[in-house]
C-alpha cells in the first residue's frame, strides 16, 4: 500500500512540473477562428527638414495581432529593413528604428516602414502608434508627424 502511494507521489512530482512548464500561450487560442494577414504602412512627415533617424513603437490597442515581418521604407535611405527586436515577432508590440548618415535623405511625407501582421478574428484592430524620436542629419530632434495606413496599397 505504502509503495503504491509513494509510486503515485513520484509520478505526480514528475508530471506536475512538466505540465507547469508548458507556456501559457500554447494553451491560449484565438477567440475566433478566422486568421488573415494585412500590412500596415507607417508614414513620417518631417516637413521641409531631411529625415536622418527615427524610432517609433506600434502596438494593438484592441484586437489580437501578431507581427510576422518588417519591411523597409520607400526612400533609398531607409529601404533596408530597420532595427527591431526579434522577440516582437509573433507578438503584438514592436519598436522600430533606423538611421542614415548619408546626404541623400527624404523630405516631407515618406513611408518609413511596412509591418506585416497576422490578425486573429474578425474585429479590425485599433493601433497605437508612438513616435519616440525623429532627427535630422545633425541629430537634432524634429517635430515630425507619424501616421499609418492599412491595406495592400503602399
Amino acid at each position: 500500500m505504502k509503495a503504491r502511494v509513494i509510486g503515485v507521489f513520484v509520478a505526480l512530482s514528475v508530471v506536475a512540473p512538466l505540465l507547469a512548464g508548458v507556456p501559457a500561450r500554447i494553451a491560449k487560442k484565438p477567440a475566433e477562428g478566422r486568421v488573415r494577414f494585412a500590412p500596415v504602412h507607417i508614414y513620417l512627415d518631417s516637413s521641409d527638414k531631411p529625415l536622418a533617424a527615427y524610432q517609433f513603437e506600434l502596438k494593438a490597442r484592441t484586437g489580437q495581432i501578431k507581427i510576422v515581418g518588417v519591411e523597409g521604407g520607400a526612400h533609398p535611405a531607409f529601404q533596408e529593413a530597420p532595427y527591431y527586436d526579434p522577440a516582437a515577432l509573433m507578438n503584438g508590440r514592436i519598436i522600430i528604428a533606423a538611421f542614415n548618415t548619408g546626404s541623400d535623405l527624404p523630405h516631407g511625407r515618406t513611408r518609413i516602414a511596412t509591418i506585416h501582421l497576422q490578425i486573429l478574428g474578425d474585429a479590425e484592430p485599433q493601433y497605437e502608434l508612438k513616435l519616440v524620436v525623429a532627427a535630422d542629419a545633425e541629430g537634432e530632434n524634429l517635430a515630425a508627424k507619424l501616421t499609418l495606413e492599412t491595406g495592400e496599397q503602399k
Partner: protein
Amino acid sequence: MTEHNRQFDDLEPHVSDRLGKDLRDLFEPPGAVPARIDRAILDQASRRLAKPRRLILRLRWAAKIAVAAVIVLGVVLFNPKSEIRNPKSIGPALAEGRADIDGNGRVDILDAFRLARHIEARGPADPTRSDAAELGWDLNGDGRVDQGDVDLVAFAAVRLGSDLRGEGVPPLRREAILALLFLRRDVSLAPEGQGQDALATNAFADILDTGV
C-alpha cells in the same frame, strides 16, 4: 455409528509407567541450558533478524529523500522564472548605461546615429590609437569601436521590455548575437592573420561571458 467405527473409541493412550520413564531417559536433554548461553543465543538472533528491518527503514528514507529531490529539481528546472534556466548577468541599467552614447539618460536610435557619425568622421579604426571616450563605447569588447558597436546600440534601443523577453535574460545578449551576425558579414573588420570566424567566435564567447 457402526460397530466398525466404535472400535476406535476405546483406544485411549494408556502408557505404562515404565515405557514413560524409558522415553524420558531417551529424549530428555542431558542437562539444562545455562541462562547465559540462552541469552547470548537470543541476542545474536535478534541482531541478525534486525538487520533486514534496518535496511527496509533506510530504503524508505532514501525513497522519501529521492521524491523530495525530484520535486525540488522539477520545480527548479521547469519553472520558467528559474534562475538556473535563465541565469542573470549584469544589470540592465548598467548595460544600457554604456549604450547611452549621448548621455541623455535613455538609449534610443540617436545614440547609434551619433556613434555611427563619430566613426565616419574619425575614419578607419587605428589599432594603435586608444581614445579614452572610445574605450567606453567598445560595447562588444573586441578592442575597437566600429559598426558592430553601432549595431549593438541600435538593437539596445529597440529592445522590448521583460514582459516579452522573460526575466533573467542576460541584458543585450540578443543584441550581441545579432550584432555578431553583422560582424561576420563585414570581412574588412577581421585583423590580418586572424580568420573572421575566429574573431566572431571569440567576441561571441566574450559577450556571453560578460554581457555588454
